[in-house]
């Protein structure tokens, strides 16, 4: 190429680049991610079954507490494809973050289509390949996605049988499927594989009717404890997380942060950075960062920025926050009510009142928020640790001023979410910096940034007034929860007069908090169950009745009774009013349709105030179970994680300054805490599959608090039940 040609070539490239940039800039930003038309342009042959998870009006948005940014696609939001190779692929915007859905969803498909698990592939969280999905949270994947997937697979099976009927010249009712083949039941060797049936064709089905899935009794794959599909990559170090992605010319960004929430930048001086080679300083409004081709290089340079901030005065701290929250609470909504509280109070012979509270608690996944953004000619490529790939897509699109359809979020493994990775701030930061710098930028939050920007479990308060009649039966229940929302606050006990009032949600909207809050594994439920089940124990103790018996006396709900009775049996619960000195504690709850109960045995070190949980037995009825081993793993994980919020976890703060910024001060559960754990999943085929990622965590606070009372006679109404609190109470008791 001579010089002139070369310059023309460059010129041409520039023009096309500029044009494409213009295109990006002026397109409508509110286009849906992937319109149906775009979607159908996806090349390839095979049998496609498109299906819709949930109805259009499903209140997903309010559940998540986010404003609706985009219409849910009307006709489908997931699909599966049976290709020429006979492999079955399902495309969904859900993500795998350790909860095991890659495996359990594949099991549902393999079951319905009668193939081995290795013939199924789940393509999760790729915004270019998968239709829109709100996100992965709320123990909803198996509960809501599972049935739709099963229906879609049943539809695919019906379509394959139709195709085979023509192909083999055999009537439909004479055909069956097995191991990836459709065969003639009268002559099993007369058969055709799924791949042969779909070869060279493009067949589209839209799931509108409800084909009959296989009866559960015939299941061979769903319901089995099959090994995780992500296992091999994870034990060999091959699993790719967002921070493991590497691109040519990429740089790492370290961002200048304020010392407190609400602080304003006053002065800035980069003099000390002048002699550092290979760094670049980028400033985009309030976003100031140092870039370097290594993370440590960027970090070293960041330390040399001289910045001063104006810190607003703020009197709030972890001691006075609860009074502040009560003062600031909106009037709220009645969640559940029956009878008349005044009536109930009239027939009560004693009134028992108490207030319960919990602090801010961090998600602290071991992987911090991470994102890599590369702005290329035709698309913006994003790899992010997120529970909401499509949320990242729209937030990045908005930050860059490009249509969402130009932003492609690639799937990566997520190193723990627990609700905290619904927030995608780091991806927006990476996108803004990549745009300014003109090269791919990786943002990896340090642990300090992770604690600073976490959307904590909100500090919250519950006030309960209740009454007992002379026969030790509850006459009324007046319950108000401040800032934790309604989840698991509804009444399943038999109480003649009750009212449940919720004032302020957990979502952080109309917030009274000094920093961000949001969904934390089983949002709201940890607060509500701690309060209710602690209070039930107080009532049982006042009545001099065994805590289990007291609950059963108020329980006609058969599912909950079954769970509790099985639990008592597994634990070896011997009735005794508390405090018995044994250190036994109990709690039970209902989490969005999953019934779960926990018994624990603890010991208390009177010298140090440390509570040692020795034994935890949990029984869970989550309806039909897809992967019993996966379900058990989730229960075990919930119990272990739950010990953290029960015993130590609390964010200390002064005004907008977060004082706990790493694992030296913020104590999460360790190996030495591990109790003997027994997780029992009741397989209840009469109830459709419910969620399992969160429920078992919600009993831990109350069960441990009740065990502390049973052991020592000390009742603590504020979480966590830490050394300091226990020692103080022991001292006061003497």
């Amino acid at each position, binding site marked *: 190429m001579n010089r002139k040609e070369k310059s023309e070539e460059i010129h041409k490239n520039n023009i096309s680049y500029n044009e494409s940039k213009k295109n990006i800039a002026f397109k409508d930003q509110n286009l849906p991610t992937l319109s149906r038309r775009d979607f159908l342009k996806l090349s390839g042959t095979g049998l496609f079954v498109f299906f819709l998870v949930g109805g259009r009006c499903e209140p997903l948005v309010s559940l998540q507490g986010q404003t609706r940014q985009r219409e849910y696609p009307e006709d489908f939001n997931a699909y599966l494809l049976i290709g020429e190779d006979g492999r079955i692929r399902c495309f969904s915007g859900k993500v795998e973050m350790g909860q095991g859905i890659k495996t359990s969803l594949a099991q549902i498909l393999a079951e319905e289509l009668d193939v081995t698990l290795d013939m199924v592939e789940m393509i999760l969280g790729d915004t270019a390949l998968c239709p829109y999905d709100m996100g992965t949270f709320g123990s909803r994947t198996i509960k809501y996605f599972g049935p739709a997937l099963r229906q879609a697979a049943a539809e695919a099976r019906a379509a394959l049988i139709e195709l085979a009927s023509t192909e083999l010249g055999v009537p439909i009712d004479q055909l069956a499927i097995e191991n990836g083949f459709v065969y003639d039941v009268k002559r099993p060797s007369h058969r055709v594989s799924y791949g042969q049936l779909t070869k060279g064709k493009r067949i589209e089905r839209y799931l509108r009717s409800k084909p009959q899935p296989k009866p559960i009794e015939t299941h061979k794959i769903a319901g089995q404890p099959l090994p995780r599909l992500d296992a091999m990559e994870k*034990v060999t170090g091959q699993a790719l997380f967002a921070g493991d992605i590497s691109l040519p010319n990429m740089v790492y960004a370290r961002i200048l942060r304020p010392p407190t929430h609400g602080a304003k930048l006053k002065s800035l001086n980069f003099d000390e950075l002048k002699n550092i080679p290979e760094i670049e300083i980028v400033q985009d409004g309030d976003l100031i960062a140092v870039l370097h081709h*290594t993370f440590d290089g960027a970090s070293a340079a960041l330390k040399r920025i001289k910045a001063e901030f104006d810190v607003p005065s703020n009197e709030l701290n972890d001691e006075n926050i609860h009074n502040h929250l009560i003062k600031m609470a909106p009037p709220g909504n009645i969640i559940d009510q029956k009878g008349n509280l005044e009536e109930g109070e009239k027939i009560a012979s004693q009134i028992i009142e108490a207030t319960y509270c919990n602090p801010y608690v961090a998600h602290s996944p071991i992987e911090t928020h991470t994102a890599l953004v590369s702005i290329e000619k035709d698309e913006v490529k994003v790899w992010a640790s997120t529970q909401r790939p499509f949320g990242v897509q729209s937030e990045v699109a908005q930050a860059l001023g490009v249509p969402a359809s130009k932003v492609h979020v690639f799937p990566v493994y997520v190193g723990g979410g627990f609700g905290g990775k619904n927030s995608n701030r780091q991806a927006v930061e990476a996108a803004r910096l990549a745009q300014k710098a003109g090269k791919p930028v990786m943002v990896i939050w340090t642990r300090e940034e992770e604690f600073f920007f976490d959307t904590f479990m909100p500090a919250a308060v519950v006030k309960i007034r209740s009454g007992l009649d002379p026969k030790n039966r509850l006459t009324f229940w007046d319950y108000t929860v401040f800032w934790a929302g309604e989840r698991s606050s509804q009444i399943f006990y038999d109480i003649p007069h009750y009212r449940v009032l919720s004032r302020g949600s957990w979502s952080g909207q109309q917030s009274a908090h000094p920093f961000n809050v949001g969904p934390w594994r089983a949002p709201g439920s940890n607060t509500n169950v701690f309060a209710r089940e602690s209070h039930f124990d107080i009532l049982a103790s006042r009545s001099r009745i065994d805590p289990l018996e007291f609950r059963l006396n108020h329980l006609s709900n058969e599912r909950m009774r079954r769970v509790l009775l099985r639990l008592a049996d597994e634990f070896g619960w011997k009735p005794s009013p508390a405090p018995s000195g044994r250190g036994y504690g109990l709690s039970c709850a209902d989490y969005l349709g999953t019934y779960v109960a926990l018994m624990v045995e603890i010991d208390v070190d009177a010298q140090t105030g440390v509570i040692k949980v020795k034994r935890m037995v949990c029984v869970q009825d989550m309806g039909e179970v897809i992967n019993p081993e996966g379900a058990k793993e989730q229960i*075990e994980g919930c119990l272990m994680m739950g010990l953290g919020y029960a015993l130590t976890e609390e964010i200390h703060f002064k005004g907008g300054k977060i004082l706990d910024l790493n694992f030296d001060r913020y104590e999460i559960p360790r*190996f030495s805490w591990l109790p003997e754990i027994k997780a029992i999943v009741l397989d209840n085929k009469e109830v459709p599959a419910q969620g399992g990622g969160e429920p078992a965590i919600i009993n831990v606070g109350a069960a441990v608090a009740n065990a502390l009372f049973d052991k020592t006679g000390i009742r603590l109404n504020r979480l966590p039940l830490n050394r300091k609190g226990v020692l103080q109470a022991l001292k006061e008791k003497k």
Partner: protein
Amino acid sequence: MKQKISFYLNGQPLILETEPDRPLLWVLRNDLKITSPKFGCGEGYCGACTVLVDGEPLRSCQTEIVRVNGRRIITLEGLRKGDQLHPLQQAFLKHEAFQCGFCTNGMILEALALLQKKSKPSRAEIIEALEDHLCRCGAHQRIIQAIEEASKMMKGGSNESKREIGRNT
């Protein structure tokens, strides 16, 4: 001032020129594209960045690169021999001793260092060795079970257990 530093990485000799005070973690991840050691806390509290240096588990985020000059580094990538998984990897698979998988690197390497020192550790010794490794998903029970199983497998005296890790890979 850049300096020449040489070491064995999973059995392969290599030389690189870099500032001697850089954290080993970021040299591995950014310069050498070895991504199994993870960044979790940056202060040595969580253990996700663990690598073995001459068989000793070290927090690579707290280890200056100059300290590994002339030494042998093993990362999780170096455990597998061809298609053959190390017994610890097999046991982690069997017991599903992880959920998100982000802490798995540190758990396996710390366990390996333990088993190389003590082929049949007690449960208390396993807990002590892993105490400063954080797992947020709560896979603790399964991790302990996996290490106990691997200990049995390695004691069984298969060729697999006797091979020197990091050689001939």
